[in-house]
């Protein structure tokens, strides 16, 4: 399997293309932007590398390259499975065209990027989802890349860290997208059975089929503050039960309160927290004082 040997070294501070999709806060240097949480207008330069609101500390949505830049040790990331490309299994009208446009806009090929890296010197497999790419939706490519990442981690006895950001299944690929939930889960199960560590980091937003599969399967589940995390969309719930949803519903703090995540970690502290968890797991049980 030569795919496992193929490594492309990717610089980790790629300039993002100029026109970003509209559904995420637009972050461009030299511009003003509005914080989606406190609604204050912020000068973008003040956001620093971590892209955290200077007023309310809310972390802005960020893409794959920004995430890599603040997470992995310099020059340690090598991308895996980069040549897997989207197909149109249901012949959904204009799907290829849409994919082409989103690729051009975002500068990435699909809603997840996988690779090997080190975090605070600890070697691991990393997958990062990007909500700029059709809301980080999971179709066959996302499913295949994450499955291969688990398989690669299992084969090489490595921990895996997955940053989730997804609106759920990729509707345009129909039932294929649903089946990715089963495919990834089976690969995660094998990684788990080998006694290897899986850390999930839930970021805004993590919903639908991603929440109902690998996002909730980590040994350790971390989240960024205020991240929207849930199975059903808020509007679907309101339409089903015909009532307004309570303040803070489906936010990271709500999930912590209900016992579904281990810890909410500020973005500035995430790298060190992940590094510490990886380090503690890298010490074998036989190594006692």
């Amino acid at each position, binding site marked *: 399997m030569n795919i496992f040997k193929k490594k492309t070294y990717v610089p980790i501070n790629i300039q993002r293309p100029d026109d970003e999709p509209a559904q995420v806060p637009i972050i461009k240097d030299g511009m003003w932007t509005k914080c989606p949480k406190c609604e204050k207008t912020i000068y973008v330069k003040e956001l620093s590398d971590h892209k955290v609101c200077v007023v309310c500390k809310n972390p802005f949505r960020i893409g794959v390259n920004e995430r890599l830049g603040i997470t992995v040790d310099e020059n340690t990331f090598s991308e895996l499975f980069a040549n897997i*490309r989207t*197909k149109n299994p249901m012949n959904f009208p204009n799907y290829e065209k849409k994919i082409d446009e989103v690729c051009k806009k975002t500068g990435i090929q699909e809603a997840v990027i996988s690779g090997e890296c080190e975090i605070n010197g600890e070697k691991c497999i990393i997958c990062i989802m990007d909500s700029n790419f059709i809301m980080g939706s999971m179709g066959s490519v996302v499913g295949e890349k994450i499955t291969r990442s688990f398989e690669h981690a299992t084969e090489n006895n490595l921990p895996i860290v997955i940053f989730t950001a997804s609106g759920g299944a990729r509707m345009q690929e129909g039932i294929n997208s649903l*089946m990715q939930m089963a*495919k990834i889960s*089976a690969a995660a199960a094998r990684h788990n059975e080998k006694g290897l560590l899986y850390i999930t980091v839930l970021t805004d937003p993590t919903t639908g089929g991603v929440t109902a599969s690998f996002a909730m*399967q980590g040994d350790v589940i971390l989240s960024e503050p205020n991240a929207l995390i849930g*199975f059903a969309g808020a509007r679907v719930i309101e339409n089903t039960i015909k009532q307004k949803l309570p303040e803070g519903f489906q936010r990271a703090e709500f999930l912590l309160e209900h016992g579904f995540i281990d810890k909410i970690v500020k973005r500035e502290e995430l790298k060190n927290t992940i590094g510490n968890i990886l380090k503690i797991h890298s010490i074998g049980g036989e190594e006692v004082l």
Partner: protein
Amino acid sequence: MNTVADIIKIVRKTTRPTSLEYIEHIFDGFVEFHGDRLFADDKAVVGGIALLNGMPVTVIGIQKGHTIEENVLRNFGSVHPEGYRKALRLMKQAEKFNRPVITFINTAGAFCGIGAEERGQGEAIARNLIEMSSLKVPIISIIIGEGGSGGAIALALADKVWMLENSVYSILSPEGFASILWKDVKRSGEAAELMKMTARDLLDIEIIDKVIKEHEDGAENDFDLTANEIKLSLIEEFNELRSFSTDELLQKRYEKFRNMGEYLE
């Protein structure tokens, strides 16, 4: 042959036979067990132990009703986290006692509500998927009506997945699909055609393994035909599945889902 529009009408009729009716017909001595041991007993899921032609099995089904009262009791077959957790408890019990598992699926989707989210609907489905993928006994899932998205696959990560001729299995309803992708619910007919959600379509693209015969106007018009075919197929298939070692069984289950999805490379 029924069109997808015909099938969607048939599958949503309240007269459509339910999981409990198939269970009563196909198995002997069904003993129903309740509760997830954590929170509650979700009546949208039924489960327990029974004999299939003399062989002990664990049977689980998503249960709808025929009347409004029954449907309210069963939450219209929309399962809460405790329902998925009850099913998982019974599957782990089946593994302990080395009994094959049969699941009957008929749901428009997992329930969307405040309590369902508070109690971790996503976690419950995710847990079932990871546990079913390595459950050491054979599993056969049969979609007898609606196979609605995550709420259905949560009980359908199986060695064999079958569908009744007039059942559907999809990422979401055609109405939802049309309104999300085209912002126009009136195009649901077009969506249904595109989605490949019928048993025949899904057999063609190898998402499912078998189509069970049904009366053209729906299984309630010749219940014995469908129920008997399910019974005979189960006996035959478990004879085959039980001939595999646990490792072989799990490897085959892994490969079945491993090969799903289409991409370029």
